[in-house]
């Protein structure tokens, strides 16, 4: 399993635990005293789960399992950039959303804008690197054999 994949997968495991931990905290509402900002944490819980855990794990598995690109370059720099953008974007959301929701337009609000931009850029990076790798591996080896015979 390549290093890039390991970083994606292990981070996704941490987000899974964080998401479910937040879920336990949310379930305490009405049973125990909880901080007021918890009222704005529900979207954070869902996105920790679906972006941090599920989507990040899928990204890591794609790098590992999908056929290599025809030209042989996996664009590792883009994969690392995607990893950093996704994680900084998501962590910014975790911090800024509960603070920004009651006060849009504050510094927290602008951090939320930055978080949105970073996560969107991560999706672009994933699409850019994955699109050419969703392909038949057979054609790849066939072309290589053909090239080897010609040269």
């Amino acid at each position, binding site marked *: 399993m390549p290093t890039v994949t390991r970083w994606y997968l292990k981070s996704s495991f941490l987000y899974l635990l964080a998401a479910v931990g937040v879920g336990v905290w949310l379930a305490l509402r009405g049973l125990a005293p909880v901080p007021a900002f918890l009222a704005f944490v529900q979207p954070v819980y869902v996105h920790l789960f*679906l972006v941090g855990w*599920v*989507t990040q794990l*899928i990204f890591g*598995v794609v790098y590992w*399992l*999908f*056929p290599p690109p025809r030209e042989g370059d996996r664009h590792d720099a883009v994969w690392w950039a995607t990893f950093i953008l996704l994680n900084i974007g998501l962590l910014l*959301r975790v911090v*800024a*959303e509960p603070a*920004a*929701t009651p006060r*849009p*337009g504050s510094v*927290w*609000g*602008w*951090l*939320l*804008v930055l*978080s*949105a*931009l970073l*996560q*969107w850029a991560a*999706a*672009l990076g*994933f*699409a850019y690197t*994955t*699109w050419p790798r*969703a*392909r*038949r*591996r057979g054609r790849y080896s066939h072309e290589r054999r053909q090239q080897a015979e010609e040269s």
Partner: protein
Amino acid sequence: MPPLSIWYTRVATVHLLTGFTIGALMLANKGVAFAPWLWRLRPAHMELLLLGWLVQFAMGVAFWIVPRRWEQPRRGNVIGARIALVLLNAGVVLVVLGSLVQDLPALTAVGRLLELLAALAFVSHIWPRVVGREG
């Protein structure tokens, strides 16, 4: 990777991009309100990412990697998986349209029904392939 999985994963990637774009606009709008109407796109955002991205991508990868049979055709009868691709995407598009056009709630219901039929079609294909090495 078989051609059908290529279709599944590429279309799922398009849904991912569309869903993330809408999500990013909504999130930015939450931080600095510039277009309150963006909130109406929330059902479309959820549909594109839950069904269009996650379900579709999982189906594409499952069709590719779940064990194949020893004899031909190795993936068995693939008609269910082909039908599922068409029904799922038709369903997602209808639900998204239904969430945007307030006067036509039937669109959402029909779209959801198509998604359910897509899942049934896919399960009819994949269920017999969820087997051990012994087949």
